[in-house]
């Protein structure tokens, strides 16, 4: 253990720093403002841990000091196995102790009556954890990992053990703790005491569960409406996606490249923009509605505002995703299967129905489930088009921000939504896994796909061409919409909306006078901070999943991927419930937005990383290890350079997602940190469609610029041999709202 002592010393010193040099509790003005240096180290607010114990009556923090001292004493132990055991235990106890004291002691004293009766009342509570407390938690996690590494876990690789432990710790804090708090919050009163009334009342609410529309008499509950919508959206987008995929691969359609471009659209489109464009077309003041009413005297109706409108918007939004999934499936059906079928005297129609289609079935089911989850999680379109006919995600939102302010209702609705999406996710994982016939094998698979039967070919063209044109019109509306004065009333062209949003005046210095600038720069800042973090966390996880073997790896992978299936609204609600009060308080800060983006977008980085890393020969890492390089050096010098395309993809994707997402963000923004999307939604709610659409198209332009910029920036790797790395082209990922 040559490095064992050095890394341990570093961590012990960090522990000492956490207790003596950093403010233990959260600083109201923000840590990076460094305003706290003025009162340091004696005032109650900014004192470090040791001073808090000695002078401010926070005696319980002595537990942290004791555990760290014991760890310091354990450093001297000679036997590595026993020292490892001691360090691992001290680390685990430290994390446990910190979490317990944080949860048990709130602002004004004990939060739990059981501890109050055990230890007696406290004269004073404690604020939320700050830099010192957070650093000491990290120190304990590292002590735990070093201890395990010294006992030979993961072949004694301290870097890998630490990485796994820290990831588990972070996911626990930022995914499972919030979800848990939300569950706890649903059965609590405002003062925190146990009170299941609200929970029971909401669980039995006919507004959620009523089956009125089926048995006649009134409307169905929001849960059933959402389920119905999700099934219809899944079906619609899968059928359309299949039609597009067939046209793109099995016909001589002349504009195939254009079809492929379609797949980028959902990635760069903020989710509510489609709904917005539909309003401009079919809303009461929409172009088409107005046109029809003038030409044929059809009364402008409100049919768009409800499930029908949401359904159209969602099918428009998610068809490209289904297309992306299904194009791989359709191409993956081995041509030799179809050729075999034709040599067995089957005609084209029989071949398609009996061979090709059954082989695509698992892929179709997968596309359906993705569409289902996307529809469930979609927040932007229902918000814009839903009117009074809400779905679960919008109901959750109104339960929290509206006049009702009923957190336990929000929690119940969130649970219902979570059950739906997680069931779909589980179905996708377990029922579909291993059922994929359409895998491309390494064997040379020559031959060509047979053409579609004539009738089917005409059919898919008849679907694809109108729908493709419709999509073009909708996106055209987005670009043109920003230049039109007032839709339906005054269709003259104007630059007013852009001027209002993005005006700049030169008054000696540049003044950002446009209304959009504030949220625009915040969005850019937060997206730029969270993108690299997401890429790091995602790729590190991918490395661990692909390259390391350890017990519980499947659970680890599953838990990470599960966070993918948690709808953004649920994350949003759970974050405000978890991070509003001690022990962790982050609401209203940029930090909570960054944490939200990192842990919501990470699974995509993980998937991309896994795909890319599986293609790198494992003997490359092993060669590096036998050449005296540790895991960290191996990652830095060998794996990362070979993963550059995957890194770019992860960076671009998380950057773009941070800009376009709305569902979780809308709960977490504050006056100081407002994001572009939530600002646009605000504009829509005020009826300022012109500015909203101008801002949206501006965002789309920015994202296209960023994506192409990245593609140009990242040159080719210095490799000639194509075979080993050819598959590393940035894999586009499906997207979840």
């Amino acid at each position, binding site marked *: 253990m040559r490095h064992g002592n050095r890394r341990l010393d570093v961590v012990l010193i960090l522990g000492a720093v956490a207790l003596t040099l950093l403010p233990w509790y959260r600083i109201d003005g923000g840590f990076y403002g460094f305003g706290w240096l003025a009162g340091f180290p004696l005032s109650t607010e900014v004192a470090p841990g040791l001073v808090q114990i000695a002078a401010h009556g926070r005696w319980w923090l002595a537990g942290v000091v004791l555990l760290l001292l014991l760890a310091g004493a354990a450093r001297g132990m000679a036997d590595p196995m026993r020292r490892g055991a001691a360090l691992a235990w001290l680390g685990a106890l430290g994390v446990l102790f910190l979490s317990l004291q944080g949860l048990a002691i709130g602002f004004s004293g004990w939060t739990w009556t059981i501890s109050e009766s055990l230890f007696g009342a406290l004269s004073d509570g404690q604020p939320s954890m700050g830099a010192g407390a957070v650093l000491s938690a990290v120190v304990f996690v590292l002590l735990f990992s070093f201890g395990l590494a010294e006992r030979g876990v993961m072949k*004694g690789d301290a870097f890998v053990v630490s990485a796994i432990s820290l990831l588990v710790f972070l996911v626990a804090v930022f995914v499972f703790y919030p979800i848990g708090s939300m569950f706890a919050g649903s059965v609590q009163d405002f003062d925190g005491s146990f009170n299941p009334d609200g929970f029971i009342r909401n669980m039995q609410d006919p507004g959620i569960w009523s089956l009125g529309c089926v048995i006649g008499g009134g409307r169905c509950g929001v849960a059933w409406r959402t389920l119905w919508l999700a099934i219809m959206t899944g079906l619609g987008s899968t059928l359309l996606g299949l039609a597009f995929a067939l046209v793109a691969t099995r016909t001589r359609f002349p504009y195939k490249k254009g079809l492929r471009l379609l797949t980028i659209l959902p990635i760069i489109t903020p989710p509510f923009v489609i709904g917005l464009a539909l309003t401009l077309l079919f809303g009461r003041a929409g172009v088409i509605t107005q046109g029809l009413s003038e030409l044929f005297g059809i009364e402008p109706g409100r049919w768009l505002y409800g499930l029908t409108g949401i359904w159209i918007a969602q099918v428009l939004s998610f068809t490209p995703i289904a297309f992306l999934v299904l194009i791989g499936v359709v191409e993956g059906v081995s041509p030799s299967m179809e050729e075999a079928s034709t040599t067995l005297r089957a005609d084209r129609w029989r071949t398609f129905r009996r061979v090709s289609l059954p082989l695509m079935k698992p892929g179709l089911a997968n596309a359906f489930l993705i569409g289902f989850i996307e529809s469930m999680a979609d927040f932007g379109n229902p918000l814009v088009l839903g009117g009074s006919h809400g779905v679960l995600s919008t109901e959750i939102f109104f339960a929290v921000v509206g006049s009702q302010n009923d957190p336990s209702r929000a929690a119940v609705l969130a649970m219902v939504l979570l059950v739906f999406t997680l069931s779909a996710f589980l179905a996708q994982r377990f029922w579909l896994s291993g059922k994929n016939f359409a895998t491309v094998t390494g064997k040379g698979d020559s031959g060509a796909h047979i053409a579609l039967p004539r009738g089917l070919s005409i059919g898919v063209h008849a679907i694809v061409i109108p729908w493709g044109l419709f999509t073009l019109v909708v996106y055209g509306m987005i670009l043109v919409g920003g230049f039109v004065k007032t839709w339906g009333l005054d269709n003259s062209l104007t630059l007013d909306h852009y001027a209002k949003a993005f005006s700049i005046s030169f008054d000696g210095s540049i003044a950002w006078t446009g209304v959009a600038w504030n949220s625009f720069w915040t969005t850019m800042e937060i997206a730029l901070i969270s993108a690299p973090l997401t890429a790091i966390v995602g790729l590190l996880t991918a490395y661990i999943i692909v390259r390391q073997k350890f017990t519980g790896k499947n659970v680890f992978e599953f838990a990470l991927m599960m966070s993918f299936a948690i709808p953004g609204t649920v994350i949003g609600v759970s974050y405000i419930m978890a991070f509003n009060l001690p022990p962790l308080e982050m609401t209203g800060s940029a930090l909570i937005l960054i944490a939200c983006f990192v842990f919501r977008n990470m699974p995509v980085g993980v998937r991309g990383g896994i795909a890319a890393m599986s293609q790198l020969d494992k003997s490359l890492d092993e060669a590096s*290890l036998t*050449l*005296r390089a540790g895991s960290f050096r191996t990652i830095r010098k060998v794996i990362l*350079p070979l993963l550059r395309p995957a890194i770019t993809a992860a960076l671009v994707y998380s950057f773009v997602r941070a800009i376009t997402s709305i569902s979780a963000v809308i709960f977490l923004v504050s006056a100081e940190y407002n994001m572009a999307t939530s600002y646009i939604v605000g504009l829509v709610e005020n009826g300022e469609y012109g500015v909203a659409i101008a801002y949206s198209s501006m965002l789309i332009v920015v994202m296209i610029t960023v994506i192409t910029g990245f593609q140009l920036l990242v040159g080719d*790797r210095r*490799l*000639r041999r194509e075979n080993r790395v050819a598959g590393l082209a940035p894999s586009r990922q499906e997207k979840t709202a």
Partner: protein
Amino acid sequence: MINQKAGSVTFENVKKTFGAFTAIPDLSLTIEPGTLVTLLGPSGCGKTTTLRMLAGLEHPTAGRILIGGKDVTMLPANERDVSMVFQSYALFPHMSSLDNVAYGLESSGLSRREAREKAEEGLSLVGLAGMGGRLPAELSGGQQQRVAVARALVLEPQVLLLDEPLSNLDARLRRRVRTEIRELQQRLGFTAVYVTHDQDEALAVSDRIIVMKDGEIAQSGAPRDLYEFPASSFIADFMGEANVIACEVVGIDGAEADIRIGSLTHRVPAGRAKPGAASLAVRPGAVTLAEGRGEGLAGRILHSAYLGDHVEYEVETDVGTLFIVDHAVDRILPAASNATLGFKNRGIALISN
């Protein structure tokens, strides 16, 4: 200058399991410093697992591993004084040959300049001086292989590990490179552990061969011992093809033994044979074949195949069906004809278990 320091290798009761599967039940072996030892066996016999445990890429479930007398059982790969040549070479495709060779030196803490100087030396040692600027993809298969060897050797490890280093080369090149490796090993005097499933390769390069089967050592010894005195029919068949037939040892006369095979008697090196029933390994080339019935073992040709410089026969006899290689190509015995078989003096060995 590259100075090798040869170290010994010891496995003490090493056990390795993967989940419920036991790859190595209980392995003990010693490798003398400065020798080239081959681990030979069919795929799945545990030879690669043994090598990877030595490299530190797998850790044993139980037992101890010593390198140069030092216990390295729990040491990670990057802290062990061994280096390895991989089957796929595992050259880093984004680095030049020189950077590949210098990589391990830099990891060991040498300055960039020192590492490059030494890497140049390593490249010229394997005959690639001046090729340092090329990427692996710009080198031929044989050159890539030599870069991989140089990369491992410049670290001056106590033990060099080679995992099927020739399997990605074509047959002609394979012969040349294995000679080069052997020559390099004898010149520099390092300890080498060589894994292969090709017995020709093993016979050609080794000081000692360890044949493994199902995670255990089936037999170990000098190449010649293994070929001439196989300890089991598995070894006899694995070390060059052999017909294994039953025989009876009727008497032992010093170093030689008299045996009876059906109606025939013959004299073979005794090895460790005892009188009584035994098995005999007969190499396909060690059988003489004559037309018609005569004095010797009666046989009937089942099948014959002409292969240019020799003819392969399957012959049915009283002691079983024999596979025979005959170099008399101008006379081919047709199927279903009668033949008389005799044994040559070389290529026949008693199996000593």
